[in-house]
């Protein structure tokens, strides 16, 4: 196959040496990922592709010569995909012939999702549970599943994230899997590449709910920390554990943050764990690289801790720690998924008498005042008890995952609802993460 040199119209020139597409096929694991094998000679190369002959999508550039296998990402199922190899040869753009391949049909186990409204751009990574199959999905603006991976029947997936440091020009997904109630310790963080292959696994003993990428290239997670109390029996606290690539290091336990509970306190909490009395109930952990600290959310204590890499307490936000919430209806209660969304702005899901709300808190650490500058809930005011998360997109939009409700929403900068995704068959989403580009481009 020869390139057509665009700089000389209506004349086909052989541009030597040639770069060619040698094979086009589908990933063995993901029917919506097209894999294009190319043999590249000199110049800067990329693939243009799309579901019409007008193409419209493109891969990052390749300058390396030789054989490469390039994934085409972000495509829906059962659709013809048109592909063209492009080369910038010293300022002259050349295009190869058009190839076409049809993406495969999704497996029937993939949860069916429907969307209303418009997501401006990007993709959403969802960890789906609660229905027939535990899985990880990536959907596009139209709610079309463009990537998927099922997980073993005996695990739940409580968090999935795009890898902060994937291989160049590709994406990878990290997911935390565990058993339902910590009785069978099969917790692990699994790493999948864009072709759906599991490329790494880190054992995370007793991990649950949430993990985070950081500090640096480390991984950290929440793990149950079960200790005996005389006269009560085993009690389930939590600890942050950091994995530095070699070993897992305990960072800080909630047993060090609070005095041991008594029976009166434990009676306040729901008794659902077989391994002991539920106590601090950590439900979210995130490492903030800019601030250099973890945010750890403890549901039953209604507290959010900021902890350094070594576990030193930098701040604790909560009614019991002298914070004044304005208005008082927004007092932090059984909160979930706190993240920083500005200099002193924290975004979280809060359980209020009027239902579960997304709350934006403006924190004044000197006066210990937390002012709710924005609050938003579903129209029916229902409470969402299981998982879920909220994220502020750098451009100002907000992604809200209503956990056990099986609803994900996108609100624009003005906090107006733009896009809603819903699932069926009892599926819901433990986590929802947005990314602008699956190839990791800015």
């Amino acid at each position, binding site marked *: 196959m020869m390139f057509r040199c665009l700089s000389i119209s209506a004349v086909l020139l052989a541009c030597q040496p040639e770069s060619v597409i040698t094979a086009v096929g589908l990933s063995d694991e993901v029917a919506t990922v097209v894999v294009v094998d190319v043999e590249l000679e000199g110049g800067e190369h990329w693939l243009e592709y799309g579901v019409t002959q007008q193409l419209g999508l493109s891969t990052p550039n390749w300058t390396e010569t030789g054989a490469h296998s390039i994934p085409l990402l972000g495509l829906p199922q059962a659709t013809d995909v048109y592909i063209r190899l492009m080369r910038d040869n010293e300022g002259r753009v050349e295009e190869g012939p058009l190839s076409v391949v049809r993406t495969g049909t999704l497996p029937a186990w993939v949860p069916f999702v429907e969307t209303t409204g418009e997501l401006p751009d990007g993709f959403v990574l969802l960890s789906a549970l609660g229905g*027939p199959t535990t899985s990880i999905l990536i959907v596009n603006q139209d709610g079309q599943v463009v990537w998927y991976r099922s997980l073993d029947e005996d695990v739940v997936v409580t968090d999935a994230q795009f890898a902060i440091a994937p291989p160049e020009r590709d994406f990878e997904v990290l997911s935390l899997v565990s058993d339902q109630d910590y009785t069978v310790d099969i917790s692990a963080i699994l790493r999948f590449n864009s072709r759906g292959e599991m490329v790494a696994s880190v054992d995370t003993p007793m991990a649950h709910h949430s993990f985070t990428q950081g500090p640096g290239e480390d991984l950290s997670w929440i793990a149950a920390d079960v200790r005996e109390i005389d006269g009560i029996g085993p009690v389930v606290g939590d600890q942050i554990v950091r994995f530095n690539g070699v070993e897992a290091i305990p960072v800080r336990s909630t047993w060090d943050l609070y005095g041991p509970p008594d029976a009166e306190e434990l009676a306040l909490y729901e008794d659902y764990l077989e391994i002991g009395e539920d106590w601090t109930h950590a439900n979210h952990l995130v490492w903030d690289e800019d601030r250099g600290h973890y945010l750890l959310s403890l549901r039953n204590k209604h507290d959010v801790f900021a902890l350094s890499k070594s576990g030193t307490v930098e701040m604790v936000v909560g009614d019991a720690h002298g914070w004044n919430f304005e208005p008082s209806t927004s007092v932090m209660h059984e909160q979930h998924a706190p993240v920083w969304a500005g200099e002193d702005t924290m975004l979280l899901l809060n359980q209020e008498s009027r239902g579960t709300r997304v709350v934006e808190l403006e924190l004044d650490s000197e006066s210990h005042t937390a002012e709710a500058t924005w609050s938003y809930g579903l129209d029916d005011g229902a409470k969402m008890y299981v998982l879920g998360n909220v994220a502020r997109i750098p451009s100002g939009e907000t992604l809200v995952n209503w956990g056990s409700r099986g609803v994900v929403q996108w609100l624009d900068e003005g906090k107006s609802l733009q896009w809603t995704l819903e699932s069926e068959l009892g599926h819901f989403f433990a986590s929802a993460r947005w990314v602008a580009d699956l190839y990791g481009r800015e």
Partner: protein
Amino acid sequence: MDENDFPARRWLPEHHEWLTRQLADGPGLLCLDWDETCAAGDIGEALIRSLDENGEVWASYTSKLESGDVLEAFVDAAAVLSGMDVVEAAAHCRTCVDEAIRVGDVAVRPEIQDLIRAAEACSWEVWVVSASVQPVVAAFASLYGLASNRVIGMNLAQEQGRYLAYLEGPNSYRQGKVDAIEQFIGRQPDLAIGDAMTDLEMLSFSKKALVIGPSSSELRRIAHSMGWPIQPVFESI
């Protein structure tokens, strides 16, 4: 709408052109039979085989078909889900679809996937009206981008979230397909597509119709007399 939106693939050129014109003239209501129309093979029968451990249901089903008790056979086929929790049944149906595709009992028809996508792009409302049991057709139809609430099928009664062994609402067989369209959609289809005499009433009720196959010489004769395009079957499995 151009070739990109609705590729010709294995459609006869005149039928591809005819369908393209119908869609472009929309929006409208498109009603599709499922087994042997949207997909090759019969997913309802695959479901029986997946749940019928000793072969009794299959034997009864085929016996009734042979003796002409078709509706009764379809009701028996639907009842294989009786006793199952609704979500458990949905999960099984999805597994059944994946397995039936894997072993070649059924096959996706890309022509129909494209047709549905093109119709929806032209603001058509697309429904499936099948005589197979609803959850397994819904599981299969999701592979064509259709939501479960756009699939009419044999609808088993439920009690406390579990399927019972009898139908609720209109049976979606022959005239029952028309009754179901009137009840659940509430208007006459602009276009209907089917493959068998069991679709005849729906095809006749529709403003326009196209036949795939068809599976019987009688339907072929009727299609000719009605001027319905007859698309040769895409493939047999």
